[in-house]
């Protein structure tokens, strides 16, 4: 895809992500029998946050919050320009680690625990993405995501188990039940707002935007499973997204140990199995 397209994509991603988040809140409300907020509610929230006083607890926190957003954007850029998938995974990891470090830097027990859970979430989700990179290679002979477009058959056909694993980490990445552990939009949990407890004003807004970008990224990853014709991929991504929202509403939040066990047991296991099956 062209460079201009990617730049446009990066600029559009927060909007798309915000809309998706708004859709999520609306649908969640409807699933619960409520009317719910308007779809553009997330934008109201973020704009408001930009207008609020920003406090910080120390200076590195600020750096790492910016790093979170920037590297998320970097990951998106790498993904949209269909670069090396492994490099994309690394950039994504950098972004998430920045978030964890921003939480760590504050010395608040709540964000500290949130950060610890955040790195456990990285631990749970990163392997699957790396496996996906391998799947990409096995399918197309290159780690470049662009290779998929030349394949002629959807990735899903040969790697259904990895697709299942990606769905699993989609839940983790979206920070939704049963995995809304490190931080969640709804406050009612044991570690208050987790990683973002100590963010405020503009910094909270930045992390929120980064989260939207992350949402777009991960849905794009789902999309990669069926790039040709492209609309099937988009439908696939949307379907996965809707399924996640429903799952969010029919599950209790589970524990961090359970998450790691599941992600490593099922996510890791399924992916590896798929790869071994394919190569054997």
């Amino acid at each position, binding site marked *: 895809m062209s460079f201009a397209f990617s730049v446009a994509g990066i600029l559009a991603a927060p909007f798309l992500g915000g809309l998706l988040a708004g859709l999520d809140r609306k649908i969640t409300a409807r699933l619960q*029998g409520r009317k719910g907020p308007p779809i553009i509610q997330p934008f109201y929230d973020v704009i408001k946050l930009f207008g609020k006083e920003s406090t910080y607890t120390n200076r590195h926190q600020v750096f790492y919050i910016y790093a979170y957003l920037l590297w998320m954007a970097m990951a998106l850029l790498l993904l949209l320009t269909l670069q090396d998938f492994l490099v994309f995974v690394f950039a994504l990891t950098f972004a998430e680690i920045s978030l964890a470090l921003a939480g760590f830097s504050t010395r608040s027990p709540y964000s500290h625990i949130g950060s610890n859970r955040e790195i456990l979430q990285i631990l749970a989700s990163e392997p699957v993405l790396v496996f996906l990179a391998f799947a990409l290679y096995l399918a197309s002979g290159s780690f470049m995501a662009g290779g998929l477009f030349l394949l002629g058959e959807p990735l899903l056909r040969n790697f259904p188990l990895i697709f299942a694993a990606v769905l699993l980490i989609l839940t983790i990445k979206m920070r939704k039940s049963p995995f*809304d552990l490190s931080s969640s939009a709804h406050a*009612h*949990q044991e570690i208050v707002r987790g990683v973002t407890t100590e963010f405020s004003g503009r910094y909270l807004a930045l992390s929120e935007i980064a989260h939207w970008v992350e949402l777009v990224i991960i849905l794009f990853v789902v999309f990669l499973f069926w790039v040709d014709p492209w609309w099937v991929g988009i439908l696939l991504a949307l379907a996965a997204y809707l399924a996640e929202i429903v799952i969010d*509403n029919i599950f*209790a*939040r*589970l*524990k961090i140990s359970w998450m790691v066990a599941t992600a490593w047991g099922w996510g890791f296991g399924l992916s590896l199995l798929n790869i071994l099956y394919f190569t054997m």
Partner: protein
Amino acid sequence: MSFRTIIPFGPQHPVFPEPIQLKLAVEDEKVVEAIPGLGYVHRGLEKGAELNDYVKNIYLAERVCGICSFIHSWTYCSCIETLLQVEVPPRAEFLRLVFSELSRVHSHLLWLGLYADAFGFESLFMQCWRVRERSLDMQEAGGGGRVILSTCTIGGMRKDLDEDMRRAFIKEVAEIRRDFQQIMTPFFEDYSIKKRTVGIGVLTKEDAQSLGAVGPVLRASGVAGDTRLLGYGPYREVDFEPVVEAGGDCHSRGKVRVREVLRALDLITQALERLPEGEIKTNFRGKLNGEVFQRMEQPRGEMLYYVKAGSNRSLDRFRIRTPTFANIPPLLKMLPGCDLADVPVIVLSIDPCISCAER
């Protein structure tokens, strides 16, 4: 060299609508020590009541807790009625039973919602509170207030139910039952809820008895202890049997309350169907003298009122032993060794009502 994280869990904390502090020492995510810090909602209510005219104390007693406020006013009134030797008309007694079971329904639904919220099941929380609104509407229609009714008074009730209302109530109860039955299965069967609650916060039968647990906490540990068995008020005239579960864990406590909602709805229907005709209030006269104990079953368990009166219009002594107060020692028994994520679930599983515990 310590790996402990010390967390001030509360007073201001999203999982606690009421302020209480737990100083938690956590290793990785295992709780190794939990020390409660109380006093955030202590209002000095008992002392305040001693300064008051005893009639005013009905309203004060109601505000021990906004959730089961009706039962507080009933207990208080029945203390005074004993002291004054006032006969309460049977219709009033039955109405009291209706409202007290109604408050049990709304209290348990409220709790089930908060409990769902504690393990992050937001939609279930929403559904519980949605059904609960129906019971609040009943209270408002019949008593005038959504949560604090102020209908119970010394000698009887202040508001009567007319015949239309009685029938509407019976119908409404049936509808609440229907709605509730639709959403209650997850509490018994849902995989993720079981994952979060089974085997969590276990209180053995022996511990429950020796630590003095009351109410659903006691009954979930397999002890059929329920003050309603004493047959105060009209309880001796209706079919009643306590709900008991044997597990002793959070899951059982949830199940006990779910089943108690159904039982309470059943009691309400019974009472409404046999509502005796007649007066709803006896006038009273006379001086308070002497002392009295009164026990009643709150949604959260057995509550004990002690009233001592001299010969003037205020009370000499007024003491309340509330169920949450009794359930805190079992709670502290359950906490160490659990995961951090279990803390809200376990704490909520005793259905803590701090405002009553600290008065």
